[in-house]
């Protein structure tokens, strides 16, 4: 039976575009006929792919190659093999600090922002449309305003006129103002706190949209099948129905968590006191734009990418288990 082997269904406008059965031809012929059939698709991705190639793929390949060299922009890159990677772990104390801090920030802010985004989106989804718009605005506003750092500089100002200091002193919890952004004890927890505070960004919005997209009939079917409360419903019906949105949120959280550093630079300056909030991102920027050791910087970048890639695979595996 040759017609059972038809892979894609029909598109009968021209004779040449008729789907073909896979059995009659070799693999390559099949791929070529498929390519012919989907020519429009290639045409549609071309403009984007050109941009993507120029602004992302080429720089990344350059960076990949340069991570095995010593390069300073002026002389031709010199091949050094794995020296950069060996130096990273054996001959760079600051890298170890950066790695440790990045892991601390990533393991706290990543999962926290992901879970918070989902839970809030889920709660908000229950509200009536008008209330939903208002509440979404309230939660999304801190993330939307690029001036987030100005806000927190105002709230956590180091003198008695700052909001936090003023009230803590008034309540008698402290006797003199704390220099929040210059104090080793406070910087790390404060940075984690602020980054969670401002983390309700694009993944939060996409969760809300994803929740809206779940078919109502599914909930009714679930209720008939014996789902008893909202917790069961979210696990068995809602989550499996928005897996791709969850994946998206996870990728965003991982990227932000391992790329942690911008907010520290804005609030504490760079470097932070005694390098206590020094992250891989800072280390990379330092070698890129201050020391001009592009080979070494590329190696750090590659290392960061491997970290993100691995954790993405892990999260993928975990998300596959959702709803079972």
């Amino acid at each position: 039976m040759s017609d059972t082997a038809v892979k894609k269904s029909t598109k009968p406008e021209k004779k040449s575009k008729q789907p073909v059965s896979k059995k009659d031809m070799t693999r390559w012929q099949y791929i070529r006929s498929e390519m012919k059939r989907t020519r429009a698709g290639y045409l549609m991705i071309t403009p984007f792919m050109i941009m993507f190639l120029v602004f992302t793929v080429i720089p990344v390949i350059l960076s990949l190659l340069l991570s095995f060299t010593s390069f300073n922009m002026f002389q031709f890159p010199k091949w050094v093999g794995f020296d950069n990677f060996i130096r990273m772990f054996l001959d760079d104390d600051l890298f170890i600090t950066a790695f440790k801090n990045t892991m601390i920030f990533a393991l706290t802010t990543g999962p926290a922002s992901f879970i918070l985004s989902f839970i809030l989106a889920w709660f908000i989804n229950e509200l009536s449309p008008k209330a939903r718009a208002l509440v979404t605005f309230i939660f999304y506003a801190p993330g939307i305003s690029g001036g987030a750092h100005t806000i927190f500089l105002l709230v956590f100002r180091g003198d008695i006129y700052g909001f936090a200091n003023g009230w803590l002193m008034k309540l008698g919890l402290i006797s003199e103002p704390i220099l929040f952004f210059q104090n080793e004890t406070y910087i790390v927890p404060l940075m984690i706190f602020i980054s969670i505070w401002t983390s309700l960004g694009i993944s939060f919005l996409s969760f809300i949209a994803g929740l809206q997209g779940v078919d109502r009939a599914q909930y009714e079917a679930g209720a008939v099948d014996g789902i008893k409360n909202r917790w069961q419903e979210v696990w068995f019906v809602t989550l499996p129905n928005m897996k791709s949105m969850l994946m998206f949120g996870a990728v965003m959280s991982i990227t932000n968590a391992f790329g942690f550093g911008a907010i520290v630079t804005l609030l504490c300056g760079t470097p932070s006191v005694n390098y206590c909030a020094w992250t891989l991102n800072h280390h990379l920027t330092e070698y890129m734009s201050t020391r001009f050791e592009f080979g070494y910087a590329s190696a750090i970048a590659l290392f960061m990418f491997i970290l993100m890639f691995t954790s993405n695979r892990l999260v993928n595996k975990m998300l596959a288990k959702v709803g079972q």
Partner: protein
Amino acid sequence: MAKKVKRLRVRKHKVVLNRSAGGDTVITVMLVILGALMFLPMYYTVITAFKPLGELSITPPKMYVIKPTMKNFIDLFTNMNQTWVPISRYIFNTVFISVASTLGCLLLGSMTAYSLSKVRMPGYKVINNIIVYSLMIGSTITGTYNFIIYCYLGMLNTYSISILPVWASTLGLYLMKNFIDDGISDEMIEAARIDGAKEFYIYWKIAMPLVKPAWLTLIVTTFQSVWNAGASVYVWSEQLKTFNAAIVQITGAAGTNVGAATAGSVLLMSVPIIVFVVNQSQIVETMASSGMKD
């Protein structure tokens, strides 16, 4: 044994399944508390912008303004009038760059997303994976090498440097692809193909209207990132800088004047917030109308 009949709860004339009243209360209370916590810094910043000089140095700071004043904003605008390039030029630059980059990014992104999601030409999986992994490559990594490319293409100090790289953003594309995967059934696309519709026609007339919420979400996020990106280091002509960059410069020059600086940041954050609010009302509408599809 008589079966226990479950009573259906009704909320605003609609039957709600599996929702206990207790749970509703707990969730509402949590939302209120978290919402207050989230919104507090924003609120504090906004009221600080309206505080006269005397009130700025009250400790502990008040959560309300005793004598609201526009002086901070007036200071800011007086400074603005003294800029070398007229402020309208900055505004034009911002509007032009935001619109061009957002539109281009959405068009190219949605076309690619549609092809990868529904046309599925040979090799689409590889392209898809490359795009997902490229999401994890931060701008810090590509930044320096991008500079070499900008130089090579002669893009330094032109509008194109603020616009073209945004078109290559994979974030919007990936989000759009998810929406299309989840929201549009293959059967519908097949039906259109059998009726003889060309791919591009299906993309524009059938697929895109169905993912309107995605478009609106993307407009918000793309606009926001373009706006917040502010001054590019690769643009040094004053005539090409954005409004955002101008305000940062002006408030920076104002130095220790906390009031004027806060007024500046309130002005800066108000624009993406307005875009978001206008958009959000649209999203609610499209959601409401698309609910009738069954």
